[in-house]
């Protein structure tokens, strides 16, 4: 098969890959961009996610990424020229405290966040109930709340990016799997199921599937996959405002603007790249859902799905250029949807210029796992 060429090859058309492609186009350098994806549209982590975006983190770097990303989501309809918008419902994230101790921790988090510019605050049970009247009052001790947080439609986000980058001239192909990366002189050749593609620069955005592409090049990535599961209800109006979190259960609940309610329960499971549902999940997920929002026990659950998320030792992203010249990586560690606007921008800079002054790039490098400079999230989450 004859080899195709491009200037920049991006592997993976999830939130990270498409956002990076868009920002590369924004820089208007004339570089030819090709994006390849093994699946079809949104058949990935992004299309399976809980759709939550929040700046309630404890690490300044994460808050920085999210402040930038949320500002972008606010403007996405215009910037991506996507009439109708991406269904950004910006009505906050409410983290429910289980007991007084946890509320005390939340108080400390809020002070820290406020110092970093995050407008979070503590809610009394009454305030929480006013925002979400269906909440189980017995669970309420208090909550942390940030009004800038919310939810964006992953499908519309991907579609907005996809259309914009295609308009800008990028070539995006679905149903094309990259089977191997090879160094060839100063370039990299990607062997794919549809023939080889040669590029000066390759950006790998395949989330938990990255190790298998990089290992043959001698790059050992401390990335594993862990299944994560979710369900969605039939639509129900009116829509309550904030996303709800019960940290101790790994529970995240999010009512989409159309009215469907998504619930994710994240639990510690054996590392596994499978996306098979678990037989014990629905009673767990539905049980926590009903306990949290008893008034919604009658809502029909229409779908239950499972998809792996990427796990790193400190649960922070890995971003930047690899030991192979021209080879770049962006893997999110389970927050790739919400951080994609900012990470796309900084990855575009690194790929085009070889550097970026974004502090996240310096911190979230691969070397930290050798030097032991892990960056744990300081929040009690």
């Amino acid at each position, binding site marked *: 098969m004859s080899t195709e060429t491009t200037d920049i090859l991006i592997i993976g058309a999830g939130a990270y890959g498409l956002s990076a492609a868009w920002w590369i186009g924004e820089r208007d350098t004339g570089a030819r961009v090709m994006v390849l994806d093994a699946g079809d549209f949104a058949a990935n982590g992004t299309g399976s996610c809980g759709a939550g975006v929040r700046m309630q983190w404890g690490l300044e770097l994460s808050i920085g990424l999210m402040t930038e990303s949320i500002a972008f989501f606010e403007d996405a309809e215009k910037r991506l020229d996507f009439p109708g918008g991406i269904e950004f419902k910006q009505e906050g994230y409410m983290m429910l405290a289980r007991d007084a101790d946890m509320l005390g921790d939340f108080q400390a988090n809020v002070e820290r966040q406020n110092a970093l510019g995050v407008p979070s605050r503590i809610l009394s049970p009454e305030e929480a109930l006013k925002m979400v009247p269906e909440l189980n009052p017995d669970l309420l001790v208090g909550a942390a709340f940030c009004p800038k947080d919310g939810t964006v439609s992953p499908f519309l986000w991907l579609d907005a990016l996809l259309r914009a980058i295609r308009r800008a001239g990028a070539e995006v192909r679905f149903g094309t799997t990259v089977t191997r990366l090879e160094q060839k002189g100063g370039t990299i050749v990607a062997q794919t199921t549809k023939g080889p593609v040669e590029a000066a620069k390759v950006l790998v955005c395949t989330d938990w599937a990255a190790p298998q592409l990089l290992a043959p090049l001698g790059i050992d990535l401390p990335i594993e996959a862990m299944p994560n599961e979710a369900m969605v209800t*039939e*639509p*129900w*109006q009116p829509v309550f405002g904030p996303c709800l979190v019960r940290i101790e259960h790994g529970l995240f609940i999010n009512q989409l603007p*159309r*009215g469907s309610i998504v619930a994710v329960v994240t639990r510690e499971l054996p590392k596994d790249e499978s996306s098979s549902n678990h037989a014990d999940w629905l009673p767990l997920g539905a049980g926590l859902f009903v306990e949290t929002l008893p008034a919604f026990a*009658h809502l*029909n659950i229409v779908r239950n799905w499972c998809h792996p998320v990427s796990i790193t030792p400190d649960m922070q992203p890995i971003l930047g250029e690899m030991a192979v010249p021209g080879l770049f990586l962006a893997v999110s560690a389970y927050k790739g949807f919400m951080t994609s606007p900012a990470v796309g921008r900084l990855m575009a800079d690194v790929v085009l210029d070889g550097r970026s002054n974004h502090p996240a790039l310096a911190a979230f490098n691969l070397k930290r796992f050798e030097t032991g400079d892990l960056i744990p999230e300081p929040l009690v989450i």
Partner: protein
Amino acid sequence: MNKTGKIGRRLGGRTGEPFTFIFDDSTIEAWPGESVAAALLAAGQVVLRIAEDGGARGVVCGIGLCWECRCVIDGRPNVRACMTEARAGMRVRRQQGLE
């Protein structure tokens, strides 16, 4: 009461007493064993719902699979009229878009 023969759109016999329920502003007669959808169809009421796009909708599959016959029954939206047995005094309302 026992009835045999056709009564309007009703085929064959009925046993038991007819009763009524409310559908929007109308009173609908029903017989034991009929679904809400069947009683409404027998009464010539075919519009069960107004979809989000403003279009009227009614019964389609009759067996609980398509969810087109969703209406508000005793205050609860998204209830399938074809899968709900009619009961005396029930309040059924046309669903307006997503409720």
